[in-house]
Every structure is written in C-alpha cells, then in structure tokens.
C-alpha cells in the first residue's frame, strides 16, 4: 500500500484571497456639477425578451445604471429601493437599468428577476461594457445619469437609499440636467452598439 507524504515546501503555501481588488478609477460620491459631468458610454444589451436596450435611447431621462449580480448580497439589498424608485419616479422621466454581471447569464438571472419581482429592465452585461464604465471590479456599482446622458454620480458598493433618492430627485427637478447639449458634445460615447438602435426613445 502506498503512503503519501506532503512535501514540506508546499505545506507553507498560502493563498491570499480577495487581494486583487482595487477601487474603480472613477471617484465616487455626490452629484457632480454639470460642467464636471462626462457622457456615459453607450451600450446595447439584450433584455430578457431579447429586445435591444440602448442607453442612448434614454436621453431625456434620468437613469440609474446598476451593475449587479445574483451572487452579490449588497446588490440584493438595493433591489427593493430600485423597484420603489422605478415605480415612484417613472412618470417623471426616470428609469433604472440593471446590468447583471452573472457569468451564466439568464440561467441565474431570469429566475432571480422573477422571485424578486424586479420591475425595471435587466440586461446581461459584458466585459466590454464593464471596461467602458471604468473596469467594474466591485458590485454593486451604479451610475446616475442626468437627462443629457452624462454621469452625474457614481457609487461603488452599498450606499444609503436616501443618497440615491436625493440625487434622483435633484436631477429630475434640475432644469440644467434636462439641457441636452448640441449633437456631438453630449452624445453618449457609443462603443458597442454599432447598428443596433431602437426606433424610439423608451
């Protein structure tokens, strides 16, 4: 019968887990002034029904773009808030777009969306979209866009519900936020969505 000796050298091997995280390169926090805001990268992703969701089509609305995953506990904590925001502010020109970063896509996301009764649009994200938004490594990460499609704030990790709510309300009420810059200057910086555009704004 063979016996096994573990070599001493490898017994000291230790794996440092969660050592490679780094914060997004974008600063996080409160609303930027209109002059500081940069156009959000455009994306075109499919929703659960296979319809293309183009961020550019949401120009004119205040949009909360939330990167999340089904395995992310802090993301789950935010979902009821976003459901409430969608319900409360939709008619004022607000929308939540949830971009899932689940590797197995709709297999996990579809039942999760149903069980959590999510009422806003959900899409499956991609590495390309993640990179466009500053290489998202931590979830949840959210961006609040003004009506001109510019990033007015971003949040990495779980923040207070009231912070989101204050930002959304301010942007909905801010007439400057509604000013859509001339073509070009404020155009959503499209990268991934060549040729895929819905005919009308949502």
């Amino acid at each position: 019968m063979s016996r096994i000796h573990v070599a001493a050298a490898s017994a000291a091997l230790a794996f440092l887990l969660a050592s490679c995280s780094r914060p997004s390169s974008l600063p996080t926090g409160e609303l930027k002034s209109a002059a500081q805001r940069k156009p959000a990268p455009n994306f075109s992703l499919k929703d659960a029904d296979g319809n293309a969701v183009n961020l550019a089509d949401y120009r004119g609305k205040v949009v909360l773009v939330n990167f999340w995953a089904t395995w992310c506990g802090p993301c789950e904590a935010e979902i009821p808030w976003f459901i409430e925001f969608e319900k409360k502010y939709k008619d004022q020109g607000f929308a939540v777009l949830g971009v899932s970063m689940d590797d197995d896509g709709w297999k996990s996301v579809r039942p999760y969306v149903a069980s959590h009764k999510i009422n806003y649009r959900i899409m499956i994200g991609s590495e390309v979209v993640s990179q466009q938004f500053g290489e998202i490594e931590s979830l949840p990460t959210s961006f609040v866009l003004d009506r001109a499609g510019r990033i007015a704030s971003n949040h990495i990790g779980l923040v207070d519900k009231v912070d989101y709510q204050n930002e959304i309300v301010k942007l909905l009420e801010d007439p400057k936020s509604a000013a859509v810059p001339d073509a070009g200057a404020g155009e959503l910086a499209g990268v991934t969505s060549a040729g895929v555009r819905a005919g009308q704004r949502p």
Partner: protein
Amino acid sequence: MLPLDLRPGYHVNSNTPSDEYLIPLRLTWNPGPLEASGFAFPQPRMEKYSFSEKPLSVFTGNFQIVTHFKAPANAAPGPATLTGKLRYQACNNSMCLAPKTLDVTQQVEIVK
C-alpha cells in the same frame, strides 16, 4: 492541506452557503496520480452583515481546507505534483468581488 488567508474585512461564502444564489467555496483536484477521497472544510461562521437580513455561512481570516487522497495500488513511488482549482467569491460589508478560480498545486511524495 491548503492554507488560505483572507484579506481583513472580507469573507468568502463557505462550502455550504446559506442561499442558493451564493457561490460556494470549492476545491477540486485534476485527475492525477492520487484520487481525492474527501474534503474537510472548517466549521463555517454564521455572520450577520448590514446588507443581509439573515446571517450568512462564511469563512474569514486564516483557515485551511484538508483533502484526503487515495493512492491506487499501482501508484508509482516518488515525487508527484497534484493540480487543482480553488473557486471562491469574496465580499466585504458593502461590496462583492467577482468570483475567481485559482490554480493550486501540491507537491507530494508517494512512498511504498
């Protein structure tokens, strides 16, 4: 024995997470000269985090996973390298990192 060291403030889901959507800590060994016959994970801690209503089954800090191997009767004596993969998903109190899979290796000596 695979020693693991978790960055302070972070946790990984245990091998038996509390929710079906959470990604378990998993160690697998590739086919090789020895066959993994069982694993011994430490006792998970039930920790309450601000983002969760219920405590979660997690590992934190330093811990180790022990694998029991069987050597087939015809196993060649001498040094051998075992290779495998460790899959984990880490979070802290406010955010989560994407799941990762690390390559692991273990040097062993098979003795007749």
